[in-house]
């Protein structure tokens, strides 16, 4: 049967058919949909783990019992999980262990770009790269077989365009069922990495690599596709697809396993063509290895190493190399440069917007873009930020975030600024899921080292940015079951923090009082601002309306950055189809002239 599947759906289905019993992940673009797809199968155990490190450790334990296990994460997730990743490479596995690393060239939804094939090389484990959904599906059972045959974790590396594009998959077969019951064989030399044992494992890893390189020579996804001898292309991943379109007649060496490399196959291919171009997304990972063999190839001097590839980029490379004649390009359409952009925004009724409005106000940062006020002095409040939808509060009109580095960094950064002697007030802002992922240990650091910062946990009860996944504080599992629930305020109090305030995210007065009090206190303070994510909340019926007789167009309501509040330069209006109504009312609370009212009141007023 042919079906249109995304790369992530194909990975999930392939893993399910390969007989996995356990799947773990922390959500992260572009990897999230793998675990979401697996969660629908009731005969396997699927969990959203607290973070990627935990996901991989749970995965490692599961595979030690002989059960095939899949662990998936985005590229930067593997930074978090690097410790167990290298540990897994040392101990090896029992049941097959496959780690999916979904890289994000072009930085569509990440804090940076990195080529995680380097991690495979660092850990000395094999890496497989699908080029589309069919190959992702086909590679999954092989990945588990390699893992078990060579006693190694296997990395399956995708990039955004493989994970997030749909292509046709011929779905054959069914779920492979193992008779094996989970059991753990005590083997301290393999599983207890005391230095004495780790030293024994160490040569195994090198021997394993040699055997894997030999295996790669005949691996069915490392294939030569013969064509004209003038030009040979070595390609992997989505780069193969772009190159196939640009060079329909060239000879190809398509690599499904990109570490370790099949040396004989590479030499034989090199001997059969005149000139070789390596097409791969991000770093010259293949190119450098092939050059180290003394094979003359070109690559990154023509193919961009930054961002996503596409047909245009490969085409431009071919023209620069002189292997394709320059086509006459269409004259570019004259589009005015000032066409307004449409960046993502905090949604109407977002529970985070109100807190940022209060913080921006406390930090004297609120300013309309065209307001004629003199250049504002330095803000008396520094706001370190974190990763989630709320990072969007960096933009005008809120201007309410000063740093974003990696998951959980806001709290440590705030401590560091304080300890370095920064004289402003300092607040760290972090979402609920991010706090659980990586915010707890730095908060312990704040307690221990007597930091005086204010930590604000924005609790919308979900992992919103990646599409509303559950987490430990929601008490719902990946498979929709009621499970254990971490109560954020209990957790924080349990660390020994006495000033913990829980506030309603939609009550401006409450937020203002809490922020003022916490910032003034000479001690560590935590504010949990709680309100449900607007995307998951049914819209209220009593939408906010602007009373045009009272409104003096001061534009203060625009400072929330709510997309429902619009201005055509002449008058302000609230889009009734976007407004969340009585579920929010933040604009009603901040209007200095009480000109924004629930529509029910305004109508009543008109009738009186």
């Amino acid at each position, binding site marked *: 049967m*042919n079906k*249109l599947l995304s790369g992530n759906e194909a990975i999930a289905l392939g893993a399910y058919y390969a007989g996995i019993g356990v799947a773990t992940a922390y959500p992260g*673009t572009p990897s999230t949909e793998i675990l979401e797809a697996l969660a629908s199968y009731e005969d396997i155990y699927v969990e959203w783990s607290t973070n990627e490190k935990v996901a991989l450790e749970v995965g490692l334990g599961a595979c030690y019992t002989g059960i095939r296990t899949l662990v998936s994460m985005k590229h930067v997730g593997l930074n978090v999980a690097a410790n167990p990743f290298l540990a897994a490479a040392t101990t090896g596995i029992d049941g097959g262990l496959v780690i999916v690393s979904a890289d994000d060239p072009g930085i*569509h*939804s990440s804090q940076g770009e990195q080529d995680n094939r380097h991690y495979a090389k660092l850990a000395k484990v094999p890496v497989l790269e699908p080029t*589309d959904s069919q190959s992702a599906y086909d590679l999954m059972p092989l990945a588990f077989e390699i893992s078990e045959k060579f006693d190694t974790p296997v990395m399956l590396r995708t990039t955004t*365009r493989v994970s*997030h*594009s*749909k*292509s*046709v998959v011929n779905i054959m077969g069914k779920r492979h069922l193992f008779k094996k019951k989970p059991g753990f064989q005590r083997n301290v030399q393999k599983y207890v990495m005391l230095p004495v044992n780790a030293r024994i494992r160490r040569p195994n890893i090198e021997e394993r690599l040699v055997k894997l390189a030999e295996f790669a020579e005949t691996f069915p996804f490392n294939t030569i596709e013969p064509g004209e001898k003038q030009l040979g292309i070595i390609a992997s991943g*989505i780069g193969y*697809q*772009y190159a*196939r*379109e640009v060079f329909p007649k060239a000879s190809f060496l398509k690599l499904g396993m990109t570490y370790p490399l099949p040396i004989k196959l590479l030499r034989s291919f090199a001997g059969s063509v005149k000139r070789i171009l390596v097409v791969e997304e991000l770093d010259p990972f293949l190119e450098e290895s092939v050059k180290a063999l003394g094979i003359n190839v070109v690559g990154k001097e023509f193919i961009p190493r930054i961002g996503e590839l*596409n*047909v*245009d980029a490969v*085409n431009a490379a071919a023209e620069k190399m002189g292997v394709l004649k320059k086509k006459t*390009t*269409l004259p*570019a*359409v*004259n*589009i*005015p440069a*000032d*066409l*307004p*952009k*449409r*960046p*993502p*925004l*905090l*949604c109407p009724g977002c529970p985070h917007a109100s807190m940022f409005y209060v913080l921006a106000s406390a930090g004297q940062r609120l300013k*309309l*873009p*065209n307001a004629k006020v003199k250049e504002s002095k330095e803000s008396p409040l520094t706001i370190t930020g974190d990763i989630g*939808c709320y*990072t*969007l509060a960096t933009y*005008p*009109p809120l201007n309410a975030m000063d740093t974003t580095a990696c998951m959980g960094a806001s709290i440590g950064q705030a401590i560091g600024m304080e300890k370095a002697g920064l004289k402003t007030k300092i607040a760290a802002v972090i979402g609920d899921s991010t706090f659980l992922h990586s915010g707890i240990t730095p908060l312990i650091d704040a307690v221990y080292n007597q930091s005086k910062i204010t930590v604000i946990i924005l609790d919308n009860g979900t992992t*919103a*940015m990646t*599409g509303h996944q559950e987490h430990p504080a929601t008490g719902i599992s990946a498979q929709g079951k009621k499970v254990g629930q971490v109560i954020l305020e209990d957790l924080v109090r349990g660390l020994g923090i006495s000033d913990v305030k829980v506030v309603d995210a939609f009550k401006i007065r409450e937020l203002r009082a809490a922020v003022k009090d916490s910032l003034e206190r000479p001690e560590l303070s935590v504010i949990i601002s709680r309100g449900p994510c607007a*995307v998951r909340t049914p819209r209220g019926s009593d939408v906010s309306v602007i009373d045009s007789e009272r409104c003096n167009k001061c534009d203060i309501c*625009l400072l929330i*950055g709510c*997309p429902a*509040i*619009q*201005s*055509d*330069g002449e008058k302000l209006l609230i889009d009734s*189809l976007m407004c969340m109504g009585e579920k929010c009312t933040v604009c009603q609370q901040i209007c200095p002239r009480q000109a924004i009212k629930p529509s029910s009141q305004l109508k009543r007023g008109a009738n009186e």
Partner: protein
Amino acid sequence: MNGFDKLTIRKYDLLITGVGGQGNILASDISGEVALEAGYDVKKTDTLGMAQRGGSVISHVRIGKKVFSPLIKDGEVDILLAFEKLEGVRWTNSLRPGAIVIMNNYAQPPLSVSLGVDRYPTDKEVTDIFKQRTDRIYLVDGTQAVTKLGNLRTLNIFMLGCLSQFLPFKVEAWEKSILEHLPERLHNINSAAFGLGRKEIKNVHVG
């Protein structure tokens, strides 16, 4: 009507654009499935920013005998299906000369326009930009039609109705795929939206 004909080329590169929340990803999924059903090779991909709502969303749907790249090459788009005017005109450079533009006559000003930093282009400016590449511009009153129908969220299906007139796929295949993606309580209203779209596009004059 003038200038109304089915495409007679061997590949169909569709670009479906809009604002997050307008449902263009579902529209692109359905287009891909209908093409697969008709025996074509298909690849489709969406590019969207980091947040859930409100940003630009672009879907590439590539249909042909054999498709390699999921992203359409610049200047190769055969049909642009735009759910919002600014999100349509933004992609003019992606169009091949003479491409078909089906655009919902609807403007959603970005925040920067509300804040007075940017200006939303006038209808004339939008048309003038498109006309540098193509004269085949179909402006449809989709938002108006589905608001009258009673469910704004059927806009994507209305737009598919318009699109379906240009592609050599059976009406039944479209309807089947649409219903498969929606809960039963939404079947009638979406069938109606699809039918309205098919009708509306025939009443629209080019240009």
